[in-house]
């Protein structure tokens, strides 16, 4: 039953070129997916607040792709905040960044990132990586179904 559901991917990425690359790569995937893009950690947190409140236009993501180097709160701070929120902590976060520094890698895993991928140079490589990422998270791995709670579409449910 769940295999035919469209999955929701939240991209947190400030670079417009990279936003386009990810969108193009995901559009080709056989796994039906809805991509939501936010250009900063702050925007992403606001998006997730709306998700928690049951906003239909801000569906809870099944996966977050997260850049590290962004103005404002930055990727690692966003990750730290997300993982300390019990309503959001089960969402896997995959870092997608230009950095391959040991320190960034280690820090990201200490903050419980569920993957760390260096942005590839070519569109083709991007496609391959997005294919592997979606295969891992949506075909191979089981996932938490966020829409099994009352906040999905039930307008009679009280929202805190």
């Amino acid at each position, binding site marked *: 039953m769940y295999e035919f559901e469209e999955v929701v991917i939240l991209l947190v990425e400030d670079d417009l070129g990279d936003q386009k690359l990810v969108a193009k790569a995901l559009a080709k995937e056989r796994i039906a997916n809805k991509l939501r893009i936010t250009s900063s950690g702050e925007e992403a947190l606001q998006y997730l607040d709306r998700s928690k409140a049951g906003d239909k236009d801000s569906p809870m993501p099944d996966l977050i792709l997260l850049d590290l180097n962004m103005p404002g709160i930055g990727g690692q701070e966003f990750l730290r905040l997300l*993982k300390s929120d*019990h309503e959001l*902590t*089960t969402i*896997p976060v995959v870092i997608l960044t230009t950095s*391959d*520094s*040991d*320190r960034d*890698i*280690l820090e990201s*895993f*200490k903050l*419980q990132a*569920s*993957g*760390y*991928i*260096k942005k590839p140079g070519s569109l083709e490589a991007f496609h*391959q*990586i997005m294919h*592997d*990422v979606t*295969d*891992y*998270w949506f*075909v*191979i*791995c*089981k*996932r*938490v*179904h966020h829409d*099994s709670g009352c906040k999905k579409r039930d307008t009679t449910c009280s929202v805190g």
Partner: protein
Amino acid sequence: MNLEIPFNMLLVEDDPGDQKLVKSALSAQDVKINLHIASCAEDALKYLQLSENGDVDCPWPNLIVLDLNMPGMGGKEFLTYIKAEKALCSIPVVILTTSDSEADIKECYGMYAAGYIQKPGKPAEFRDIVRNMITYWFTDGLSAKHHLQANELEKVGGK
């Protein structure tokens, strides 16, 4: 960093049949990964302790693959323990189990599992799943690069 450092995976699994399946699936991959097997959570903890102390026979795992149902300390307890340990919490842990219960899935992700895979019945499926897992973690992913333990990085001052 040095690309010649081999990759290491720690499998925490009590069933000898499943141990064999993972071993054989790994040997069919292009990427060379040294597999270390602990037959119970307690042995896995001992391995990690030795690894932290620099024992060359217990190299630092780049990935832990963890069964849930084991005698003695169960998988969830092990996961909770290592995620609370400063030196160990950065190792990604992927659950590999027969259970597909929603409660188990939610609980494990809530305890920072970095994947949850239900064991497939057939060896060929097992191989496919392991191939995909290896690609994600060791080919596309840079987690394998992070061969330094947390305290080691602090000692050398990082990069």
